């Protein structure tokens, strides 16, 4: 790889510095050396012409499931990072619900080492909040953080015990890492397959009421107020949750939230034919919830876009809807579907799109020198071609799994290059 590279003639969008202007971006020895205006191309080993493209800080997906260790038939860290770079991401944060659960230092190190060995994107482990995701005893959060955990979450399931959540938040003030909660009141969602709605009633499926999310979002906001510790809401999906987070932010509480592309694009009417590619947790919601999530993302109530990349094999999905696994892959579709459906249609500004994909997730996870193109920052860059038209094809993806409801969708916009510490990848030929 080159020691220095120049992305020449693009539109640099870096909300961390308030930049949205034509200019060159130079990286030397893995760090940003030049940002904006024109640079002397002769000083760089490699010059990548990017006219017509957006040049942004490297995209950060703060919520992925790479299934390693334990379920390598679905995804490995090595396949996951290739999917990440192909989709435009230079960094990912891996959830802790593997087998075994990432609840010990050695397992945090295992994920980091696998990530380093794989190359491509940066891999940041998220540690479990409780041992074995059992919801009973806190993990050694400080030791896990020192080993490299960037945040803590029992994602996949909620921290259902209010006092354990309170203790985790209190303890996190010493550790300095954010607590991320999957908000689901478990007694309200037992046996549920989809959103509770006229559609669930028509299909004869047990519903997951929005109130089960809202209750836990509010609980977390209340505990945030009690403890003063930051809390991050994973995959927010309801209109009421958006309202609760907006209100908490207005009151100055350190509450942040993310939303998935599928909760921004799809609603529960997609389930009409019991297609398991539309089964996820939280489930697809009503059109009103989708609109509220879009508005919340646009006005900054929802900080980040995160894919909740959840690979599952065909065996997990070719079944009765009630027996199928939850979740869809997202790393290779997030950028184009959000770009096509929201950015290109003017529902989400370019600045906010980049902010929610870079600055905000990097800040929430405390990733120093990432999510920004400031001189001296890590040379992590995402170059987007906003004009290219193409068709999503699950068979062409790098993920080991193909559970993707966006398969076949005609989209506009695609990541063309990703740089990770100055190493440049061509997203279309990984």
């Amino acid at each position, binding site marked *: 790889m080159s020691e220095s590279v120049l992305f020449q003639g693009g539109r640099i969008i870096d909300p961390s510095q308030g930049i949205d202007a034509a200019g060159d971006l130079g990286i030397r020895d893995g760090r940003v050396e030049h940002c904006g205006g024109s640079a002397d191309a002769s000083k760089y080993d490699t010059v990548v012409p990017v006219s017509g493209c957006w040049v942004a800080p490297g995209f950060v997906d703060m919520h992925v499931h790479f299934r390693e260790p334990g379920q390598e038939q679905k995804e490995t860290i090595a396949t996951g990072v290739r999917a990440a770079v192909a989709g435009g991401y230079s960094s990912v944060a891996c959830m802790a619900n593997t087998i075994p659960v990432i609840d010990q230092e050695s397992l945090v190190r295992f994920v980091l080492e696998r990530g380093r060995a794989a190359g491509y994107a940066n891999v940041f482990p998220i540690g479990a909040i409780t041992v074995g995701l059992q919801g009973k005893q806190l993990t050694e959060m400080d030791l896990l953080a020192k080993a490299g955990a960037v945040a803590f979450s029992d994602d996949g399931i909620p921290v259902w015990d209010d006092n354990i959540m309170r203790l985790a938040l209190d303890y996190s003030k010493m550790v300095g890492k954010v607590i991320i909660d999957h908000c689901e009141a478990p007694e309200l969602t037992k046996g549920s*397959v989809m959103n*509770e*709605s*006229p559609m*669930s*009633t*028509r*299909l*004869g*499926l047990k*519903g997951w*009421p929005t109130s089960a999310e809202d209750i836990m979002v509010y609980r977390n906001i209340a505990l945030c107020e009690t403890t003063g510790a930051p809390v991050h809401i994973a995959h927010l999906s309801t209109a009421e949750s958006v309202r609760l987070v907006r209100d908490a932010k207005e009151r100055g509480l350190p509450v942040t939230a993310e939303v998935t592309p599928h909760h921004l694009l799809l609603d529960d009417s997609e389930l009409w*034919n*019991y297609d*398991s590619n539309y089964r996820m947790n939280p489930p697809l919601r009503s059109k009103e919830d989708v609109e509220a999530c879009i508005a919340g993302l646009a006005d900054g109530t929802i900080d980040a876009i995160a894919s909740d990349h959840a690979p599952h094999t*065909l*065996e997990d999905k*070719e*079944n*009765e*809807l*009630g*027996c199928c696994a939850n979740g869809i892959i997202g790393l290779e579709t997030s950028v184009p579907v959000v770009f096509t459906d929201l950015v290109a249609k003017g529902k989400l500004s370019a600045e906010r799109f980049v902010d929610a994909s870079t600055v905000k997730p990097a800040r929430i996870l405390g990733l120093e020198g990432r999510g920004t193109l400031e001189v001296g920052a890590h040379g992590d860059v995402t170059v987007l071609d906003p004009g290219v038209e193409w068709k999503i094809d699950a068979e062409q993806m790098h993920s080991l799994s193909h559970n993707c409801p966006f398969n076949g969708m005609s989209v506009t916009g695609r990541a063309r290059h990703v740089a990770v510490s100055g190493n440049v990848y061509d997203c279309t030929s990984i």
Partner: protein
Amino acid sequence: MSDRWERIQERAGGWKHRNLLGIQELTADDISLLLDQAADFRDMTDEDLATHKPMSSVTVFNFFVENSTRTKTSFSLAARRLGANLIDFSSAGSSLSKGETLADTARVMEAYGAQLVVIRHRESGAPHVLSRFLNAQILNAGDGWHEHPTQALLDLLTIRDAKGSLKGLRVGIIGDIVHSRVARSNIDALTKVGASVVICGPPTLIPPYAESLGAEISYDFDAVLPSLDVIMMLRMQKERQESGLIPSIREYRKRFALDAVRIQRAKDDAIVLHPGPVNRGLEISGAIADSDRSVALRQVTNGIPVRMAALYTIFKSQSGGEG
């Protein structure tokens, strides 16, 4: 006699649906057509059937992944009367419990030469998922809480027999609506043919957003009973108390059971249906179940020609002249 057989064939020729997954996909005309088919099949004698052998050499799989005695027997009798080769492919557990997917099971049935699969499954939507992996035609014999289309059709035939017409009737469906595929299919079928439906039960057994199903909702059986032409009592399972959905069977019975005292509020000519099996003394007293108002056994009898009509009509419409 041969007129009847010609009518049956002609109606089948106009049928548009490859599978019978639910009432939802049918129009009022489709429903009337199947009821007319059933009435004609009911009138065919054994000699007629032996002469025409409507489905001879057609392989029908009974794929029952949930316990069922009545529906399975009814489909078996219907298939035999039509002259089909009937294969019992029932299974105690789901495909998944054997390590297979539903898709695998579908491919196995296809490899055995299944032309028509009758599926009963505890999971809502299983027939829809199966239809994506199977070239054989599919007939839904009840899926989870979703649909039980042939039950609704036999209920409508029984009501039509008793009342002459379905249009304008007021039908009450009483009991555990939320877990009932019979209720969903009947609400849809009855409203499509011009009857009005009121569902009645404790709020914890009425599904969320039930109004979107097209029925009126009531929690007061005594108040709606005098207005009903048809009283459809659903089976109440004792487990609903154990899972906390109702405080007690005792309280349920006092408010929703149909007994000799409560029936006095009903119209003189109101009829009582029950899809069976009856929990005698729970949702309905023995005296009412055995009374002249009850048409429960006629429902059972009508099940056979209704299923003959469904099997024959969907098969014939796809196979053209053969069969």
